[in-house]
């Protein structure tokens, strides 16, 4: 098998078909789809003039991106923690841990995400976070601390909502991360465990110093992939009234009635964030591989 690409007559035919199809679509859109494009209206939702001093400030779309990144970041952190525990639980020697982890993973994998998120959102928000008393946070902390917290978690009067939604998302992603962690640990040769056993070390000690460091190296690519998946999945929390990109898109689409333009812009923003991140990951991976050699 040769690695070099060959350009044959079949490729010419395929490319010709694709070009013809694109030309046809362009023709239909131009000549028959009576739609008057208006990009200016939705585009103004990137930035707006501040009424007080007349300077430019972020508008709904930029605010939406920031909240999407915020939800994704905390969702990833929590999801990794949950996934690590559940993944290790699935291969635990304690049957109870195995049962709990298995039950969790199977529940998430076999329930549609929207009902799962709603149930978790209301359960977590009402039963777990309400007793913690997150409502009064903005009054309880100094303005400086409040500023830092706001940067990290968004508006503090919405903190409970944000936390519940993020946790619900993390619980959803955690199940998939658990499977990645499990596969990573199981991929480590049995001899590594046997060598550790023979040296008289506990399973936990071996896991920490020998097994996990090797497993993490192997599961970094699938984990990076999952974090991009998580950014896309974060659009689901718009249903929980978190004002991230998709939520904002909905608002703008309804208020301006420019559905095509708005959603194309929102889609492009997701693409830029996710594709940018995947390029960064690819570069990091190349660098890690190089340094390991």
């Amino acid at each position, binding site marked *: 098998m040769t690695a070099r690409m060959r350009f044959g007559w079949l490729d010419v035919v395929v490319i010709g078909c694709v070009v013809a199809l694109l030309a046809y679509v362009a023709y239909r859109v131009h000549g028959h789809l009576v739609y008057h494009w208006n990009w200016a209206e939705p585009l103004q939702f990137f930035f707006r003039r501040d009424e007080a001093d007349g300077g430019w400030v972020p508008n709904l779309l930029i605010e939406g991106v920031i909240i999407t990144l915020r939800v994704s970041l905390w969702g990833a952190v929590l999801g990794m923690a949950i996934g690590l525990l559940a993944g290790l639980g699935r291969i635990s020697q304690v049957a109870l841990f195995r049962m709990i982890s298995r039950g969790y993973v199977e529940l998430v994998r076999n329930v549609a995400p929207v009902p799962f998120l709603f149930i978790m959102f209301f359960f977590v928000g009402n039963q777990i976070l309400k007793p913690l008393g997150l409502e009064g946070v903005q009054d309880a902390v100094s303005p400086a601390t409040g500023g830092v917290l706001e940067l990290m978690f968004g508006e503090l009067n919405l903190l409970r909502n944000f936390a519940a939604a993020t946790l619900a998302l993390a619980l959803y992603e955690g199940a998939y991360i658990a499977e990645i962690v499990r596969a990573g640990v199981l991929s480590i*040769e049995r*001899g*590594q465990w*046997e*060598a*550790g*056993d*023979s*040296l*008289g*070390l*506990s399973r936990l*000690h071996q896991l920490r*110093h*020998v097994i996990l*460091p*090797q497993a993490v*190296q192997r599961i970094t690519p699938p984990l990076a992939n999952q974090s991009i998946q998580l950014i896309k999945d974060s659009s689901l929390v718009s249903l929980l009234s978190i004002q991230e990109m998709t939520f904002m898109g909905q608002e703008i689409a309804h208020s301006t009635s420019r559905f095509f333009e708005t959603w194309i812009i929102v889609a492009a923003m997701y693409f830029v964030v996710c594709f940018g991140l995947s390029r960064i990951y690819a570069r990091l991976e190349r660098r890690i591989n190089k340094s390991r050699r």
Partner: protein
Amino acid sequence: MRASTDADANAFLQLDGVSKAFGDFHALVDVNFTIAEGEFICFLGPSGCGKTTLLRCIAGLETQSEGRIRMGGADISWLPTSERDFGIVFQSYALFPNLTVSDNVAYGLVNKRMAKPAIKARVAELLSLVDLSEHISKYPGQLSGGEQQRVALARALATSPGLLLLDEPLSALDAKVRAHLRREIRAIQDRLGVTTIMVTHDQEEAQTMADRIFVMNEGRIEQLGTPDEIYNAPATPFVADFIGVMNFFTATVAEGGGVVRGDLTLACETGGHGEGTELNCAVRPEDIRLIDRDGDDGANIIEATVDSIEFLGSFVRLYLALPALGAGELRADVRKEQAQHLDIAVGGTVRLRIPPATIRLYEAGPPR
């Protein structure tokens, strides 16, 4: 059925009736032995004979289906691996790739509640023992196979275990490194006096290193003895065939002693076997003497035709045809100078003598 289930006072390691079955497959069948403190033992046998399974049972990495294992007087049959007192070198090394050489060696020491400087000193001592001091901060992936093997050895010895287990430790190395490490491992074992069991399928390795060899076949120990005993007095046809090179042929006990096959009659000690009994006769190629055409007239002098000649460095191996045995059935090893002196050539005839004392007889049935 069991030999004894009582603890032998002199034994460091004692196995009583150890068996291991994987479903219908019997990997180990009623294994019994005792090993004294400080001995170097080799489990020798073809692949699949159960030698590695036996080692893993002693380590607790495999659980025996039946039988008991005692070490230092205590019953360790059901003790988990981490609580048994041994160090092991795996065939695949199983070094920790994410840790440096010194961390690999130190790994077993960290839960011994040793102070950091003491651990450091111990690691340095072990690495100088295996002659790897200059590689202390490298990773296993940066070392050659032989060096990795020595790291594995240092790691296994770090906690000063009572028992050292070596699972085919040299099989992945090239011949020169292997020969060097053989001597080195044996020298270290002599210096430390640690009781050692090594699994190998290489008879040369076993013979050069071991105090005693346990020859295994199909889950059983066929013979245990010193390298000399195993080679010169193999107890079964399997051992005779597996260790060194051996000519085998069947013959029947002749009237008035000796054995006969066709027109070939050989004098030898027939023991208690009655006349007419069919037996397996075994002769080592190097025990067959070639004599001058007009040489002396002793016992067992035969004429044979040379079928082919194999040059094996310091000696040549002749494949001989005898009317009674068939073509190329008998192999004889001759020193190079003698072969030249006798002017041996393919198709020529040679006179040879099989000293009666070198012929060994086994109950009939082909070697397993």
